[in-house]
C-alpha cells in the first residue's frame, strides 16, 4: 500500500540524513515532504495530508511539542502517525508528548534499524 512521509527538522542537512537513513532501513514511501518547523509542517498538512510525520523537537518558530498538539486538533492530521526524532531523551518529555498525541519516539543519534523498528507498525 502506498504511503507518504513528511520530515520536519530545522536543519536541512538533518532532513537529508533522516531521508537517507529511512531509505537504508528498507522502508519505501511514494511521496515525501519536508518542513523546516512545526508551523510550516501544519501548513503543508492542510494542503496534502500524509501518513507518517518524523518530527524534531527543538525548532524555531514552532517546536515539535506545539506541532503535535495542533496537528491533533486538525481534521486532516487526526490519523497521521507522528514520530518524534530528537536529541531530547527525558522520560517526562516523552510521556508528555505521547499523551499529547505523538505515536513514537526515536532519539538522535539513530540507526536505520531504529527507524525500521519504529515505523514498520504503521506501514500497513
Amino acid at each position, binding site marked *: 500500500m502506498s504511503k507518504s512521509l513528511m520530515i520536519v527538522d*530545522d536543519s536541512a*542537512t538533518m532532513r537529508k540524513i533522516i531521508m*537517507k537513513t529511512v531509505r537504508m532501513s528498507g522502508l519505501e514511501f511514494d511521496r515525501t515532504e519536508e518542513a523546516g518547523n512545526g508551523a510550516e509542517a501544519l501548513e503543508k498538512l492542510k494542503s496534502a495530508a500524509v501518513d507518517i510525520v518524523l518530527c524534531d523537537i527543538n525548532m524555531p518558530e514552532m517546536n515539535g511539542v506545539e506541532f503535535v498538539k495542533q496537528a491533533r486538533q486538525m481534521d486532516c492530521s487526526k490519523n497521521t502517525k507522528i514520530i518524534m526524532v530528537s536529541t531530547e531523551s527525558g522520560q517526562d518529555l516523552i510521556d508528555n508528548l505521547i499523551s499529547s498525541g505523538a505515536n513514537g519516539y526515536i532519539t*538522535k543519534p539513530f540507526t536505520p534499524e531504529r527507524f525500521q523498528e519504529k515505523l514498520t507498525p504503521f506501514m500497513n
Partner: protein
Amino acid sequence: MLEQMTMEQTILDAAREVFETMIFMDIESAGSEPQETSPEGAALMGSITFRGGLEGCLTICLSEACARSIAANMLGMDSGDQLSLSEVGDAVGEVANMTMGSIKHRIQNTYNDLQVSIPTVVSGRQLFPMPGEDFTRGQVCTTLDEIFPVTFSMYYKQAQS
C-alpha cells in the same frame, strides 16, 4: 558539581556514540595535553548552550576539511567537496546538538532539568570559545580517522539558586 575528569570522560563517551552511530568515523582521544582549540587554516566552531541546574556551553572546533568529511559521511556521499559551507556548517551544528543530547542523557541522574539551545555555527580562522567568568572548563582533544584533530570544550558552572 561534576568533576572535570568525569565531565571530560562523559564528553568523550558522548562524542564516540555520535561518531560511531551516525558518522561512521573512528574517534580517539588525543591525550590529556591541553592543545590549541582552533585548528590551522579555515575552521568551523559549533556551539550549543544549556541552562538548568548546570549552565554553560559545549563547543566543537574542527578544520573545514574535517567538517566536509563529517558532512559527507553523514549524508552518505563519497566526498564533501561539492557541499556548500552552509550545508557543512549545518552538519557541524547537528554534531554539537547530538553530542550535547548524549551528554545530557548521561548526566540526567544529577541534572534532570537541562534545557538546550539551538546550535550555532561560525566559520573563520583562529576560532576560540569565549566563556564568561567562573566557568569550569572540560576539554577533550580527539583525532578523527587518525588525521583530523577535533576539540570538544565544555564550559560549565552550577546555576545560582
